């Protein structure tokens, strides 16, 4: 590998065959280059009379932003593209963590450059902290083949493997409908929406696109009163009700009973998860004896009401 100094304009950024990083923020890198310069030269290779970038997209783009005209590079002399890519891969592996999207792109390039599938599973996936199985490889390949909008969404939302691979199982039109719903939500809720939507769709044999286009959901989404987070949460709840109708009706019955009883906010009563056990738990906080006794009295009063026994009846037919 030769070290050279090149004009940044001589590097063709159109050729993305070795590129694995997209949709990244440059601010920190720009700051670092401003302060201490470019420490780690990018790797380039000559192809069809052009100089193409092998690794260092972030660095080169940061230098462009800083209007740096010349930069040091290492020129890779190998002809074999797989060899070159592997070199770039190890160069990166030693210095930084890869995002999920980058991992997907790495696997995609390895396949594209002719690396054997089994070899990828055996050697590269553990290096990327991915379980050594073909289904994982397939899911990541599906992510790497997504349309740019979806890739950007995954990268910018730092989506972990599970929700990202679920997202990849929908079609582009469905994904387009999903982005505004998913973006205000945390990772767990994102996963919940995707899982519920897919499960409902498979159970009733209706495309997700159709499920998302029902009046109820369209009304929520077009509401001007609701924030995007409120809209997303409402749709999430709606899908949960469709996915778990019996459980949701139990939950609602339980809640409505508490409402009917005017259950005090400062005392929480909870069933076990999914009502799987018969027990309930009650919690309250107190800072002195008087508060404690007042809560106990309140509980005693609640327990003496007729409605209270309904909490324990298995058939929540009250509403």
């Amino acid at each position, binding site marked *: 590998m030769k070290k050279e100094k090149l004009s940044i304009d001589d590097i063709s950024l159109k050729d993305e065959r070795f590129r694995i990083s997209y949709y990244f923020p440059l601010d920190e890198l720009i700051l670092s280059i401003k302060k201490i310069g470019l420490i780690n030269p990018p790797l380039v290779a000559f192809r069809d009379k052009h100089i193409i970038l092998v690794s260092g997209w972030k660095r080169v783009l940061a230098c462009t932003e800083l209007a740096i005209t010349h930069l040091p590079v290492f020129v890779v002399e190998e002809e074999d593209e797989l060899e070159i890519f592997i070199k770039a891969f190890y160069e990166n592996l030693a210095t930084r963590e890869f995002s999920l999207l980058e991992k997907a792109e790495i696997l995609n390039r390895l396949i594209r450059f002719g690396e054997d599938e089994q070899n990828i599973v055996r050697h590269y996936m553990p290096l990327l902290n991915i379980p*050594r199985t073909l289904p994982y490889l397939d899911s990541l390949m599906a992510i790497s083949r997504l349309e740019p909008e979806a890739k950007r969404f995954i990268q910018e939302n730092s989506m972990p493997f599970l929700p990202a691979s679920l997202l990849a199982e929908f079609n582009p039109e469905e994904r387009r409908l999903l982005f505004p719903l998913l973006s205000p939500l945390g990772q767990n809720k994102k996963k919940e929406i995707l899982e519920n939507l897919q499960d409902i769709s498979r159970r009733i044999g209706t495309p997700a696109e159709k499920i998302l286009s029902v009046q109820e959901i369209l009304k929520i989404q077009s509401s001007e009163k609701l924030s995007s987070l409120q809209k997303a949460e409402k749709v999430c709840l709606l899908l949960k009700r469709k996915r778990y109708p019996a459980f949701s009706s139990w939950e609602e019955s339980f809640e409505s009973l508490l409402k009917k009883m005017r259950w005090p906010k400062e005392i929480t009563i909870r069933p076990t998860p*999914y009502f799987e056990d018969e027990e309930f738990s009650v919690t309250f906080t107190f800072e002195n004896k008087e508060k404690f006794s007042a809560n106990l009295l309140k509980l005693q009063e609640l327990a003496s009401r007729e409605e209270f026994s309904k909490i324990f009846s298995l058939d929540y037919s009250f509403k």
Partner: protein
Amino acid sequence: MIESQYLPQKVYVEKQSFDFPLTKRILENLSQIPIEAIENPRDLIENIRISRNIREKGKTYLLLTRQKGEFVKPCPCTPYYIGCNYFIINLDLNCPLDCTYCILQHYLSNPLITVHVNLDDLWRQLDVFLRRNRAGILRIGTGELGDSLALDHLTENSKGLISYFREKRNVILELKTKTVNIKNILKIEPAQNTVIAWSLNSRRIAREEEAGAPLVEERIDAARRVAEKGFRVGFHFDPIIRYPGWEEEYGEVIKRLFNAVDPGQMVWISLGSLRFPPSLKTIIKERFPSTKIIFDELIKGKDGKLRYFKPLRLELYKKIIDLIKNWGGEKIPLYFCMESKEIWRRALGWVPKGQESLQAYLSSPFGPLKK
């Protein structure tokens, strides 16, 4: 009765396993099948594990190797639910049938159909195990990590197991199957403490979710023949699966069962509803894209496994128990596999006080076991 018996495409034999009588017997029964001697099964397993269609491929190969650890283990059951104090013999691993819901897809990292051939070690370990567990009646079976009879035409292990346990006073041996591979069983003198048990399901579930398994009618017919021969028989409605029309279709199977098999020969019927660890859902989704059973109202139970929401389970159990009782099973011990106390109480009207009480209940049809 249609008997479609499993034949592997290839047999792998661990080099140190060639001399065991069981290896010789299996190879004699598979004289037309290519054989390859291997040094270390682990390398073979590893190679198959990272290839495509691991499970499908695994089922086409038979691996003969030695059990290097314990043959006998307590059934892992599941935490937080009532277990039935069952012991398992890890003689065969994996199964040539291919049920969508099969837990082995998730549980076993080795995808090959594997037979442990060092039977001498098994008998030795069993002697020690039984000496240590003299109190009460034990139930022990081979059908947890595979199907007890699916390979019996090759291994003929049913004969050895039944004769070994015939002499033992405080053990009930259960051979649990979905197959009709009963040729060897029909040649053996029935033993008082052996139960041949069938997993049953509705015709639709059997057809759509239990690939490679005989029709339910054929299983019931096999049970009839075995019961008529004088063996005690057991049945497992597990996993019970909900779908539109389930009640009627489970009813048909139960009616057929009681019309065919003498209830006096039935020693137990277990019930269990569909349940599986969440990671199995991903495997099922991928391997069986047309199945819908995993998209029903399954919630996360106390043990982390997905199972039907409690009232739905209760509805399933109550109806099936009624059907069993109505068709002549009122005296047959019924029990649940991996269920909560509440389900026991609400569906069966009692809760076992501990594993001993459950053991006593399940061994009640046997009376005192004699030598």
